């Protein structure tokens, strides 16, 4: 083992939660080291080679599943974390969710949270996606929604001069997506933060309620060292932060419990004419209800093939009509009934099972919400002019008439009936709240019973926030940074590519 390394504040993970904390603490003059398991992949190294980028940027090469292998759980594994893979969709946390977190003992005062959102939104340039970036399939879907009496919404996005290539989910090779690797991370580095990429934190060494160090391992060489700091911030994201707590024997009866998801699958409408959904931003239109959300998701060929339902030559025949396909993802916010755990294999055969497992099954009400979501998506596509709708269900023929949708209960009984079921929005597992016997983290972001261990990522959420979580993870991290560093937050942030672009625009006038 190499000699110990030292820093003032150690942050585990460089995604939405970790990067924001790292920036604020570094900007306040603290010595910050961020440990990131994944590689640093520069925009200039990114390509439109889907398998290559999926392999490099996604945890387990995109193959992380629940323990029954009937649900994919997608997460980032690179500097910038999952933010590098997002569609840059930004939503604020719904007010009822904020209140419900408060009722759970995780109070986020409205003024404090609003100020945090404002700061984050200015750094990410959150604004309405311009119409010239819309892909041509969008209009069909909007018309369809209106025809069935649902008003479609447009997305707020975190982008700067996006060119609408439609490859957001494998990283932005043009550097136009304002993910953490383009914003907070280089901003933190400009204030002296150190980013150690390709290093995994394996275990937290602790005694008597105090963390003594992080046992780290270089992914490429297997070389180990201990990182010692005054304060430690876990920001590995849902699934990973609970796993690290479990590996370290911290709150083993609570860590990993209360994991929730926005779980989804994609329905496809085949139109009589070409809609060329690939030519523009992947996600331009949505419709959201409390029980489910519908979000357009057009994909380049590989990702389209991976999400398009159908077996054998049927699938190939559908893909041959790639240009005529429009797609709507159905997202259902689940209750926090999921669990991250270290299985028997991990204890007995660590060499093969050196990972946590995820247990999750949708409840009957969630399946019912899924059915309603699928029916609404299919109806909108038929009303928009689609001649066939392919539902993500095993064994269901294409839907060609509204009446076909009455058959849905027969085809969707539980999640095993779903094809391509998964989640890119895992949350919880280290839920924050004021009950030291139920929750893992206290309302001040400190792990219950520990004086110098904090959490700042999606694992804090006591239940799903219903909408896409990135912006809220960052806003909550902004709140966390204030507490962890004991710092006062600036009203506005003058760093970063967006601030630079604004200054350049003013100077050019």
């Amino acid at each position, binding site marked *: 083992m190499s000699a110990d390394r030292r820093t003032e504040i150690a942050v585990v993970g460089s995604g939405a939660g970790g990067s924001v904390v790292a920036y604020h603490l570094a900007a306040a003059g603290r010595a910050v080291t961020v440990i990131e398991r994944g590689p640093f992949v520069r925009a200039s190294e990114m390509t439109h080679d889907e398998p290559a980028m999926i392999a490099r940027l996604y945890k*387990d090469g995109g193959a992380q599943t629940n323990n029954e292998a009937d649900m994919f759980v997608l997460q980032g594994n690179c500097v910038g974390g999952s933010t590098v893979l997002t569609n840059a969709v930004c939503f604020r946390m719904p007010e009822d969710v904020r209140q419900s977190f408060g009722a759970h003992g995780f109070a986020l005062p409205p003024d404090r949270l609003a100020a945090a959102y404002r700061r984050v939104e200015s750094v990410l340039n959150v604004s309405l996606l311009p119409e010239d970036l819309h892909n041509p399939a969008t209009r069909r879907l909007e018309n369809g929604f209106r025809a069935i009496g649902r008003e479609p919404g447009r997305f707020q996005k975190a982008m700067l001069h996006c060119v609408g290539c439609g490859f957001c989910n494998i990283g932005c090779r043009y550097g136009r997506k304002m993910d953490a690797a383009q914003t907070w991370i280089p901003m933190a580095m400009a204030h002296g933060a150190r980013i150690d990429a390709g290093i995994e934190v394996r275990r937290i060494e602790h005694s008597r309620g105090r963390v003594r160090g992080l046992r780290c391992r270089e992914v490429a060489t297997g070389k180990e060292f201990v990182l010692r700091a005054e304060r430690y911030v876990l920001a590995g994201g849902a699934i990973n932060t609970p796993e690290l707590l479990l590996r370290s024997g911290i709150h083993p009866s609570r860590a990993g419990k209360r994991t929730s998801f926005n779980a989804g699958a994609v329905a496809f409408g085949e139109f009589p004419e070409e809609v060329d959904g690939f030519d523009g931003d992947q996600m331009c239109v949505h419709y959201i209800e409390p029980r489910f959300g519908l979000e357009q998701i057009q994909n380049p060929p*590989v990702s389209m093939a991976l999400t398009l339902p159908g077996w054998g030559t049927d699938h190939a025949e559908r893909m041959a009509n790639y240009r005529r396909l429009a797609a709507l993802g159905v997202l259902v916010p689940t209750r926090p009934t999921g669990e991250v755990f270290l299985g028997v294999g991990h204890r007995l055969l660590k060499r*093969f*099972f050196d990972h946590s497992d995820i247990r999750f099954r949708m409840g009957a009400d969630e399946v019912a919400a899924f059915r309603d979501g699928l029916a609404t998506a299919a109806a909108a596509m038929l009303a928009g002019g689609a001649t066939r709708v392919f539902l993500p269900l095993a064994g269901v023929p294409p839907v060609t008439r509204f009446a076909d949708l009455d058959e849905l209960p027969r085809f969707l009984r539980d999640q095993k009936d779903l094809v391509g079921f998964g989640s890119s929005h895992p949350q919880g597992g280290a839920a924050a709240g004021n009950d030291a016997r139920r929750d893992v983290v206290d309302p001040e972001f400190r792990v219950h019973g520990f004086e110098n261990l904090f959490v700042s990522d999606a694992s804090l959420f006591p239940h799903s926030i219903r909408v896409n979580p990135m912006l809220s993870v960052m806003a909550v991290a902004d709140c966390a940074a204030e507490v962890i560093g004991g710092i006062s937050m600036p009203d506005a942030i003058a760093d970063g590519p967006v601030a630079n672009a604004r200054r350049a625009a003013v100077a050019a006038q």
Partner: protein
Amino acid sequence: MSLNTRVGLLLLALLVSSPVWLPLLPFVLFWLSRERRLGRAEGFRTLPRFLARSIEGYAEATLGTPPAGGFATVARNVDGYLVRVRSPRHWRTTMMLALLEFSPWTRLQPRLSRLPLAARRRWIAERLSTTRGLFAVPSLVRQLVRMGYYADPSVGRSCGFRPMRERVRGLPSRARTATYAALARRKVAG
């Protein structure tokens, strides 16, 4: 039944049947290392030859027109993906591919890549097209195969996909790489 339970049961079954296969182990290991060597000779970095053939066979049976370089391209693209993935779950993918290849043995048929095309199609349609039961996991191989197939530019083009450089949006003046992260280039360790 969870994936781990299945793997556990498989290991248990192997343990129980060990008197049968243990004497054959040296031959199996010899065969495996030969397949690996032959795979490498064909340019595969992770796939032994029999798994590459399995992927090609699956692709031929389920996909449309072959890519410009034939179905071997699919196996090559899958190999290119696998070689880049760093994951403690990696071995599961190899095992899933092996299960796919040997699944016809459960009905006393030749392994998948040795089945004639029509029988292979039938086997895949009847057994390996499911989200439930024993074959749900090997059925997931379809995702790897589709990834390897649609990653080929000739296939994307035949579906009507146009890469960025052929779109107005992709004109060099509009699509330059932004360089704010240039700073990171100098300072990030690892």
